[in-house]
């Protein structure tokens, strides 16, 4: 009888542990997938919107990249603009006021580097050192807490060479 109970307890223990492990793993995998897809979405939007735009204003009265938490892109024809704004307190990245990712995913760090500082195609005063095709580099850190309370963190960085030649 004792042997049978011991075997039963061992068997049940293995079963419960395995079940808990499987459930935890599935949940963790799901959360990782959420972080992956949302981080990818954010960067796809950033690169897509910036590629055929300019950061130097133009006809759409914008093109501001002076502040460290927002950047405005104007379309090549100057008819439309899009503003990306980073809210460090909330850990959110917004496009025209709309949050690009869910509440569960936080952008704990966001930065962008524009070069050159002035439009090389229209600035008469720009020295030869500043005559480079405009480009923007985006860096961001995405973070999500999983069900066990541990943080999943990923850094993403990419650059876009702007396709506007005027």
């Amino acid at each position, binding site marked *: 009888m004792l042997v049978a109970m011991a075997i039963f307890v061992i068997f049940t223990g293995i079963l419960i542990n395995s079940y808990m492990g499987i459930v935890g793993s599935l949940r963790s995998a799901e959360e990782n997938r959420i972080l992956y897809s949302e*981080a990818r979405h954010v960067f796809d939007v950033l690169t897509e919107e910036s590629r055929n735009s300019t950061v130097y204003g133009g006809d759409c009265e914008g093109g501001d990249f002076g502040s460290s938490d927002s950047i405005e892109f104007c379309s090549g024809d100057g008819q439309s603009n899009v503003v990306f704004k980073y809210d460090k307190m909330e850990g959110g990245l917004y496009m025209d006021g709309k949050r690009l990712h869910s509440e569960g995913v936080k952008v704990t760090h966001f930065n962008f580097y524009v070069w050159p500082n002035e439009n090389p195609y229209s600035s008469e005063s720009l020295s030869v*050192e500043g005559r480079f095709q405009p480009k923007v580099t985006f860096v961001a850190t995405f973070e999500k807490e999983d069900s066990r309370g541990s943080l999943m963190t990923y850094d993403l960085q990419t650059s876009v060479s702007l396709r506007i030649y005027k």
Partner: protein
Amino acid sequence: MLLRMSKTVWNNKRGFTLTEVLVGVLVLATSIVAASNLLVSMIHSNVANMSSLQAYYYTQEAMEAFRNMRDTHFMHNVNFCGQSGVNLFGKDGSFLDGCRGLGNGTSSYYAIDVNPDPSSLDSSSSGGDLSASSPWVLKPVSGKGYSDARVVFNEDKTKKIDTEFYRYCEVKQYVGKDGEEVEDVLPVVSDSNAIEVTCTTEWEEYSRDREVSLSMVLTNWRSE
């Protein structure tokens, strides 16, 4: 036959021996552990997906760097691959050797670094060297360069973090695929005005080598 076996099992009044039970439990435990391992490998593949995404964007960045350098060469009225004596992107200047080299069947590899704050550097350059104010640092590497090719994550303009990724690009003259003539694929350019840039990001994950590779054709469209 099956009916007889079924009757034997259900009419077994003696029960099972300890050995039979232990074997049964062992088989069950093995199958559960195997299922758990499957899930662990699923988690690993999720992590691998994330690394692939990081590598993809690093590779794309290198491709954009080459496009950007070509366009900058246009602005300075030099060859789209660069020009001897005009060092816009580092000490060695341009990827001109890569463009030239492929004419005789060799190729050239380059590593790319991002300079997040070119304005902070000394731009009092001379002799055609403008690399101090360049947003990119281009370094020739021998083959698949490693120590020189480590990717740096530029958290801010001063804080650079070494990543686990290594990135290099191969530049060669575009020759078309499967015997195609370049003119058939790119009718507006001649063969000396098209290069193929293949950028690769490599890293090691769970003791396995992994890589992401992207390729594009850059043309000297201003020459036509």
